[in-house]
């Protein structure tokens, strides 16, 4: 009872910490780690639910959910990293070709996207 409660409470705490970090820290990697910590928090809650008291086998459903959730989280992180990589490449390319400041690019996520017109080839 208490153990599960503590475990679940810790999960909520992790979620809140991750959320805070996601909102406050600008670099993408930190945001991604923060999101993963939030996910870990939710998984903690699921695992806490699965506990059905000492002696009884745990509820298998939350375990299955957590496993699925981890797979989803991994692929999401991978996609985010791929997109970020693309941005970084772009940034280094444009830094080589023109000598514009990359300060705006490194803060990647606050780029104003309407500033330019996209032309289709």
């Amino acid at each position: 009872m208490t153990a599960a409660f503590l475990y679940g409470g810790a999960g909520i705490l992790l979620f809140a910490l991750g959320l805070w970090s996601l909102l406050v820290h600008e670099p993408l990697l930190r945001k991604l780690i923060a999101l993963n910590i939030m996910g870990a928090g939710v998984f903690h809650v699921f695992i806490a639910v699965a506990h059905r008291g000492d002696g009884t086998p745990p509820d298998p459903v939350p375990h299955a959910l957590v496993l699925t959730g981890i797979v989803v989280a991994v692929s999401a992180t991978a996609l985010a990293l791929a997109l970020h990589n693309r941005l970084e490449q772009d940034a280094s390319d444009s830094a080589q070709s023109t000598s514009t400041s990359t300060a705006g690019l490194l803060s990647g996520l606050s780029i104003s996207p309407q500033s330019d017109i996209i032309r289709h080839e």
Partner: protein
Amino acid sequence: MTTDSLILPIALPLLGALLTTALPRIAPLLGVIAATLTALSGLWLTGQVWGGDALNIVLGGWGLPLGIGVAADGLSASLLAMSSLVGLGISVYAVGYFAGSDRGLHFWPLWLLLWTALNGVFLAADLFNLYVMLELLGLSAAALGALTGSREAVAANLRYLLVGLLGSMSYLLGVALIYTAYGTLDISLLSERIEPSALAATSVVLMTAGLALKAALFPLHFWLPPAHANAPAPVSAALSALVVKAAFYLILRLWTDLFANITTTGAAFILGALGAGAILWGSWRALRAERLKLLAAYSTVAQIGYLFLFFPLLQAMPPGPARDDLFAACVLMAVTHGFAKAGFFLAAGLVQKNAGHDRIDELGGAAQSMPATTFSIALAGSALIGLPPSGSFIAKWVMMRGAFETGQWWWLIVIVTGTLLAAAYIFRVLSRAFGQEPTPRCFVTDARAEIPALLLALSSVALLGLAAGPIWSLLGFEGVQT
């Protein structure tokens, strides 16, 4: 057989996605075949729901709660029919749009995956599968949106991805709390069990807030305009017309079905007020937008607002035919917007391709050299404004009557202002088409791309407006009370 058909709208596009990945050489052909089959299966399923009752099935040979539950009722069938027809239109358009470009290679698998997830959201019968489908939807949507590879598109879609992840996490936490309290995630079981409690209230708030991020409800819409405006045209159409609807569908499902006895007028009022903010701010930004696709994106923000305006009305209206009308009008509004916005974005993409840009003030010649495309924009625009005989006209009529009947006349001011602003931004575009440049000899210049846009726009006006009755019967309601 009827119940087996339930998985086809999910399985067929998934199969298509695998095949287009494996055989990139003939991806467009495979893609169109998969799209056609998916659309047919979706429509067939809609027909099943229309003819009979709600359907459901459990996959994987496991019983609930471990098996994957799939179910279709009137609400999911309506949206499934929308995704089928709009998806088919987008697929046909995409063949021409991506012809001769290697971006199409990535487009087809991702688009079919997105369609899988979309139909999955509409058909999933338990909250966790909904999470998986939502996540898949978010991932494929962000990847598709970044397809142009331009810096703006990638940055915008990276932001979209993170926002979507945050929304999913919030939703998942809500799901965890629900499981903690009730021990099941099956929607139909839960709707019987849920009682007012702090845990249930917290979880509905977490789920709603997470989904509101994905549905781009004002002021959480910040990610939408850059992401939608910078994507390739067929992707913009899919994102704006379909993907945001998935999140909205889920909120509607949660509020009217699952948590119906938890939600309160105060909470519904908050959603309505945010919707009102979306209508006013989105329409205003659309009016000020310099680019056609940005205008369309902000118009989506505003249209999502109309959908959320239904919540306080639904909450205040006692059960009965008048409430059924409101519910059906809400679905009609969502479906109409799906068709209209897809048509609008596809047409805008053609204008952009033709003119080389989409700055509204300089579109005169392009608009006149493509009469069919301009006509599509006019048709879709009239559905966005809510002019008769479009579906949104009927929806707005029911909505305004509901506002009077529940004594919430203030929404009326919002609806009227939003309508005027919408008319202003649509006619701002259309007035470019009345210049003295010559029109080409033929109405349709590029049939493969123009016809889907035209048909989608036309359906939003003619099909959904003149015969709105089927939506009512699909939802199992008697027919509108006039």
